């Protein structure tokens, strides 16, 4: 009984987090803020929903679910760090940045986002700088 209640609670918590993450991904103005919503909240939502499924009944094997949870928690932060670093270096727009850019001398950064630079090349303007 306690197990069932805990499972239902975890399922509800995970669903709430996934909804918040989806609203953030749809509404936030900037790549980095969207990534904050998608990875952090999506990671917690996935973890608690999988835990709820594992607690729900005995027919589900727990080892695979625990492996999925561990792998998600290990790799989600690494992947989002890699992706945000690449987005910063490719010149994605940063919304609401005030004052000095703290990463200015640390990472190379393009002037315009990738899609604008490739659009310039398609129009026959100045060519893309070769990578």
């Amino acid at each position, binding site marked *: 009984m306690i197990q069932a209640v805990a499972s239902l609670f975890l399922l509800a918590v995970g669903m709430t987090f996934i909804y918040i993450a989806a609203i953030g991904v749809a509404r936030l103005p900037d790549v980095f803020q969207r990534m904050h919503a998608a990875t952090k909240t*999506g990671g917690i939502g*996935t973890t608690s*929903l999988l835990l709820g499924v594992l607690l*729900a*009944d005995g027919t589900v094997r727990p080892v695979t679910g625990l492996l999925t949870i561990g792998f998600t928690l290990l790799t989600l932060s690494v992947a989002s760090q890699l*992706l945000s670093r690449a987005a910063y270096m490719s010149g994605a727009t940063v919304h609401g940045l005030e004052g000095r850019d703290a990463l200015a001398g640390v990472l190379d*950064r393009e002037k315009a986002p*990738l*899609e604008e630079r490739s659009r310039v090349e398609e129009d026959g303007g100045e060519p893309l700088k070769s990578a």
Partner: protein
Amino acid sequence: MQPVFTTVATVLIALLAVPFGLAAYRMIRGPGYADRFVALDMLTAIAIVFSALIALATGRSAFLDIGLVIALINFVSTCAFAAFLERKGGGQ
């Protein structure tokens, strides 16, 4: 206890359509490449949850294996997309 969880899992699968649609909206609409990669991350997380809930609804634990494989592929693909963005944007 089992029919309760079958019903709950079915309802939750139906409710997951809304976050899936919002992430797909960002994937289609997203102004930049990086937005689409973030949306792909979100979509694969929702797919993992889908497979776990289907495992709960049908009682077949093979669907959990699908979730594990989706998680593995998600990491590799995100790394590949990050390398693509970085190589296109790095000024070395």
